[in-house]
């Protein structure tokens, strides 16, 4: 669907490349996560992919065609949700949506979308009266109002409560099931873990890791099993190598004779991997 080859970019007054020779592709129907600390080049890459930034080096293909050859009709096919609210605050939600909808040939089912994000009842309220979460949900409706084939989501769950974040993640999954493709940036690793088929980590303009969340966890995880049990009123923690664990007599004996409190494999989290590969704590990355 998207193929990025040897992409390089530096801002007009910048001394060095913000994007430094990155290549990746996104298959049709894939949810691709793009992760990295602040200033790593995530947003710049997205801006180039959605044709906001020009004068880049390298080639980007969308459905086999160089994106520089697309006219503004390119936007009939994609939907973009920005991180911050981007609405006319002195207009109602429906006035906002109606205005944008008229600019597209393809028109989605607005009522269904608004109901899905629980905004239908508030459709005639001024957007200025909306909470941050409501504005973010309206961003998603704005991104999907033209029935796009490809979605770009920038920190889509940032500012949403867990219930609405779940609804949004379900919408992304349903979009994928209907054949859609998604490019997503987020610093909320659990979201990425739950919905992305593949992720790429970008640091200082370079992709330093790219794989499925599962493969990354295996690669960066510890092949061990940690077991906690009670003995003489105290918690005892023992770690066993994962290889050959089924024949490890000590491990099997503990399972049979002790009251086990917890049993964990050494699988790491995407958050730990993020810290390992980017060298940045997540709170600094936001």
């Amino acid at each position: 669907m998207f193929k990025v080859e040897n992409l390089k970019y530096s801002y007009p007054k910048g001394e060095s490349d913000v994007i430094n020779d990155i290549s990746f592709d996104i298959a049709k129907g894939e949810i691709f996560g793009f992760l990295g600390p602040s200033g790593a080049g995530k947003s710049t890459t997205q801006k180039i992919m959605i044709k906001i930034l020009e004068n880049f080096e390298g080639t980007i293909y969308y459905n086999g065609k160089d994106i520089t050859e697309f006219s503004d009709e390119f936007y009939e096919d994609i939907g973009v949700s920005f991180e911050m609210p981007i609405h006319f605050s002195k207009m109602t939600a429906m006035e906002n949506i109606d205005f944008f909808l008229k600019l597209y040939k393809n028109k989605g089912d607005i009522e269904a979308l608004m109901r899905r994000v629980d905004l239908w009842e508030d459709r005639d309220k001024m957007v200025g009266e909306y909470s941050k979460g409501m504005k973010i949900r309206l961003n998603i409706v704005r991104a999907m109002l033209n029935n796009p084939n490809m979605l770009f989501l920038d920190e889509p769950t940032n500012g949403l409560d867990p219930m609405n974040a779940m609804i949004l993640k379900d919408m992304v999954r349903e979009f994928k099931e209907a054949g859609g493709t998604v490019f997503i940036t987020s610093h909320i690793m659990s979201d990425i873990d739950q919905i992305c088929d593949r992720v790429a980590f970008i640091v200082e303009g370079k992709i330093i890791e790219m794989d499925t969340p599962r493969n990354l966890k295996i690669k960066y995880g510890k092949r061990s099993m940690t077991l906690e049990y009670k003995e003489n009123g105290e918690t005892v923690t023992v770690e066993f190598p994962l290889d050959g664990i089924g024949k490890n007599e000590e491990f099997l004996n503990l399972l049979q004779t002790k009251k086990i409190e917890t049993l964990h494999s050494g699988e790491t989290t995407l958050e730990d991997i993020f810290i390992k590969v980017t060298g940045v704590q997540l709170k600094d990355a936001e």
Partner: protein
Amino acid sequence: MPNRLWILVKGELQRLNKYNMTSVSILVAFIWGVMLFFVNADILATLLPIVILLDATMMSLMYVGSVMYFEKSEFTISTMLVTPVSNSELLLSKLLANTVHNIFSSALLIAVFVLIKDVQIHYFLITIGIIVATLTHTLIGIVMAYFSKDFTGALMIVMTFSLTMMTPYTLLMLNIIQGEFWEIILLLNPIQAASEIINAGFVGFQITYKYYLSLGYLVFGSIILYIFYALPKFQDYAVKNSGV
């Protein structure tokens, strides 16, 4: 007019209304109307063209500056960039909407004085004058917005422009600067040129070569400014102010 441009113009006009620009415009026209209502015919004949000139020039700068400030503060320009509309459509829609908006307030003012004070108007010439003056100054306002970082900055640029351009215009009007040489040189000042083509809309004004010079200067100057600066720089401006 292509359908998409028409949708954009309607959207701009709707927002001018929602963001109370139309109300402000009517209020300003009303205040001018009240002030001019009480002056005698001779003073009215001098002041009405100046008021129409201010409406078409200074107010155009202010309105388009405000609209672009709202766009910046709400980052709405970022979402406009990812719609299937071209930059020229986006820019033209602002020019056309602001012109329609200004014609409305000027027409309101003129209508009042035609009906109440029996002011004599060349309707065709005044329409041409207001359209050209408004389009030119809206375009100048858009270019000014490219250089302003915030609302205060925008206000400072507009005020500096106004002061710089209004001073020679006033000096010429008060005959402090005199002579044909200066009358021609000062037509380079867009406000002076706008004054020439707006004055032509009032009965009794003698149309000379300066009218055609001013009209040509504003029309071709605007086309050149649009093609060689406003349009090519729009993408940079939009990206810088998109907040993404």
